[in-house]
């Protein structure tokens, strides 16, 4: 087995693990958004949400899930743009929730 094959085998295992953990990651993002809804002025909670989306975007892209990575990056950018606000309105929260719902819809539509 050559070096590239060793890498591909290990990479594919990590990719399968990522796919298996995707529902947990999405749940964590949902929970984080819920926490933001409960305390809209809490900057730490908003940063947590941003980091979860940032992580999903980066990881998905590196595992070859390009569209998922891009979708997550779009929501991440929207969250980042809202970071300058002292508190998020219900409308802004609803917008992020809608974007997340669409993201999940896309993920489950792509799964075999």
């Amino acid at each position, binding site marked *: 087995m050559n070096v*590239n094959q*060793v*890498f591909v085998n290990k*990479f594919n295992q990590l990719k399968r693990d990522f796919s298996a953990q995707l529902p947990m990651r999405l749940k964590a993002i949902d929970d984080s958004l819920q926490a933001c809804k409960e305390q809209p002025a809490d900057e730490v909670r908003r940063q947590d949400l941003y980091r979860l989306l940032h992580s999903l975007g*980066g*990881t998905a892209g*590196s*595992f070859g899930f390009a569209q998922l990575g891009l979708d997550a990056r779009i929501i991440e950018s929207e969250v980042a743009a809202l970071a300058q606000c002292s508190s998020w309105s219900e409308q802004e929260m609803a917008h992020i929730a809608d974007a997340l719902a669409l993201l999940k819809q896309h993920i489950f539509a792509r799964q075999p």
Partner: protein
Amino acid sequence: MNRTKPERVLYVEDDPDIRAVAQMALEIVGGLNLKACSSGAEALQSAEIFRPDLLLLDVMMPGMDGPTTLAGLRQMVHTASTPVIFMTAKVQASEVAYYRSLGALGVIAKPFDPMSLASQVCQLWEQNVMPDLSKSP
């Protein structure tokens, strides 16, 4: 001295999945000797013993981000002038210019292609560090 790739790379990335992929890519595909750290604080602890000749830093990390980690490493004797490459999703011209102003050899965009990550690192090394090394006695 005319090394075509770094001998010891200190790599810092907080996301465990991305760290695992990059570590495999750099070690298995690139044949690099890597010390992977999950935080800037761990990197500061590891640097003195590992004595890297290249730093590969994620930019956005909780606690100490990449630039803050670099500032800490610059305070240490063995990494005061060690070449650095940043890895980030933020690669607009102004952002890249900022990382270069911190002394970065270059920036590797995330998400990265695992199969070409090591060659990207070695290319930046060859372009920026090898010319200097070849001048040294």
